């Protein structure tokens, strides 16, 4: 069993859990992910590792409540345990030889972008972080990004905090200011990553994206996480989750991501009703 040693709410829909998993903590690297099942009959859900502490033997995950499974996860409290927690899966993000990198995070994707920014900074790389959120209420990890970045651009869709606009606006501005990046690392909603890639292609900057498709086992067995990269079928779980963003077929990935939308909506509603009943 995997005990929750710390649970923290980061914003109204995003929470953090630090989980006891010493073997995984020993091996985890930024960019890798875990699969959890909150309870015995839960779905298997992949989440990218947000942080890890090798000495304490803990792995941190940050999740947004989007469906039945994350809702169920959120019912667990400090001291409770997750039924299953397996990892570290996937390939670590490549950080070697990078001198100057723009890290772009969108929404809860910032949780995954942060450990990479942190590692790059520790390796002596100059990190510029561009982070975007819908509004002020949803901002997460601002201080964490500031601590590891030479430059931070915080964007909100409605201008309620930071600068009003999209992450692509801020990234383009940084590029136009004369910053020459070895690489851009973009992690967030598919639509955001797609537009970041369109922008960086124009400036011919190598761009790495982290894909988070639907999957079951996370070890290459189900093939559900397949995507088309440079015309070839690749599995996000064993070949990724990081890929060259200029080669990813984002439109196909967006279609595939909606495979179970109706089912999820139904489960979400059922879970909400159940919670309401419990509260009454």
């Amino acid at each position, binding site marked *: 069993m995997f005990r929750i040693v710390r649970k923290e709410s980061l914003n109204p829909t995003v929470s953090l859990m630090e989980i006891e998993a010493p*073997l*995984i903590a020993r*091996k985890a690297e930024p960019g890798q992910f875990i699969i959890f*099942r909150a309870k015995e*009959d*839960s*779905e*298997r859900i992949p989440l990218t590792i947000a942080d890890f502490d090798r000495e304490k033997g803990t792995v941190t995950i940050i999740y947004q409540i989007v469906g*039945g*499974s994350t809702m169920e996860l959120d019912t667990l409290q400090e001291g409770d345990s997750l*039924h*299953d*927690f*397996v*990892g*570290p*899966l996937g390939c670590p993000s490549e950080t070697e030889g990078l001198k100057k990198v723009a890290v772009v995070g969108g929404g809860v994707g910032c949780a995954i972008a942060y450990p990479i920014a942190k590692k790059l900074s520790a390796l002596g790389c100059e990190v510029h972080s561009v982070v975007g959120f819908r509004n002020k209420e949803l901002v997460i990890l601002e201080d964490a990004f500031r601590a590891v970045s030479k430059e931070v651009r915080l964007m909100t869709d409605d201008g309620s905090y930071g600068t009003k606009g999209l992450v692509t606006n801020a990234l383009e501005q940084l590029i136009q200011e004369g910053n020459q990046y070895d690489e851009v690392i973009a992690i967030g909603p598919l639509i955001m990553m797609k537009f970041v890639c369109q922008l960086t292609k124009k400036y011919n900057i190598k761009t790495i994206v982290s894909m988070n498709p639907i999957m*079951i*086992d*996370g*070890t*290459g*067995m*189900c*093939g*559900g996480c*397949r*995507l*088309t990269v440079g015309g070839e*079928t690749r*599995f996000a779980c*064993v070949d990724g989750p990081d890929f060259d963003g200029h080669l990813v*077929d984002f439109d*196909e990935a967006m*279609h*595939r991501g*909606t*495979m*179970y939308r109706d*089912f*999820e909506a139904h*489960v979400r509603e059922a879970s909400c009703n159940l919670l309401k009943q419990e509260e009454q």
Partner: protein
Amino acid sequence: MPNERNMDPKKCPMPVQEPEVRRRNFDEVALGYTYEMAVNEARRCMNCKNKPCTTACPVSIDIPAFIERVVHEDMEGAYQIISQSSSLPAVCGRVCPQERQCESKCIRGIKGESVGIGRLERFVADYHREHCTEKPQVPSPNGHKVAIIGAGPSGLTAAGDLAKAGYQVTVYEALHLAGGVLVYGIPEFRLPKIIVQKEIDNLKAIGVDIETNMVIGKVLTIDELFEMGFEAIYIGSGAGLPRFMNIPGESLKGVYSANEYLTRINLMKAYKPGSKTPIKHSKKVAVVGGGNVAMDAARSAMRMGAEEVYIVYRRGMEELPARKEEVEHAKEEGIIFKTLTNPVEVLGNEAGEVCGMRCIEMELGEPDASGRRSPVVKEGSEFTLDVDTMIMAIGTSPNPLIRKTTPGLETNKKGCIVTDGENGLTSREGVYAGGDAVTGAATVILAMGAGKAAAKAIDEYIQKKA
């Protein structure tokens, strides 16, 4: 009269759920022999001296001997004989391709039907499970530690044999549940999960430690396992990586690998009402492939409520690699066989969902390397099959996670681990491998045979070293 042989040229038929009923439920199809049926069928065995059936069994069960015990109504004695050779008799009695193994060599098969060896094996195992109250004996430990990677049929067999010899055995399983293909692949209606669970409980009872959620190659490497004090390692990690055809449209919504489709239904229980696992409730399904996995996927789709289910296979009915019984059951359940047919493209609608499949007809040409006549395209025969779901069951490749992280472990072009002959020794000292990880996708019983041979080799290796 035990000595009186039953000269009926036909096997006692297996009681089954009626096709019209079973095609919509996940309960076991074959109901098993009654006590009387089993004894009566056992009396058809001639108890040959040279035991051709045993020579055709991948784990060399002494078949005439166990059947003779059934004739004498000594069911526990029969069970003891089977379990000397097989760790999972209740499983093998259900999923072995007997018609190509033991039963193919039965002399009763020359002038009639062979003895129903598989059905008798199943009866004996089930009878034991239902009647035996004795706890299995825990062997006295010999002080040596062995690690097994993968809790599928191969790994569990090796684990059982080594534990019985006194080894402290730890099995590492990547999924949250032990059983491998027996729990994620083979459906409930062909192999009830409670039977698999019982076999696993038996292994635990004799001291086998099973660690789930452990992806070896990621959380621990082979070299780290040696550092932890394991003296030998058996890799039975299977051939889990699904193959696709690389035709246009394979990434559309509604195209599944058989692995994904069956895992959602079996391991993740999508067939149970109220399950939290999403799955497409398809109306018209095409399953591509002709093996047991294809039959399992097609029959599962029917049980999930599909109106029409097709098996699309590029060779003919005669060439279908699936067990004969599965093909017959599938036909009875209304699965439509489109043989000599190959898909060329999956068609999608604006929402990115499957809305059809372009196929081409094939004809059989000259025999190829496998000895089977190879299918060739019939020009101008393209047509569209109206389906909303396509399931790819055209085979799997070995999982790459271990070979990527184990220096010095030799693999071939296909990614299969290279072993030295039958004992399963790899290019690394103390590391043995078997099952689909070595052969590519094959059968449960062959994987078990490999696990058995490797357990013996590991025992000899450690005893020689000690």
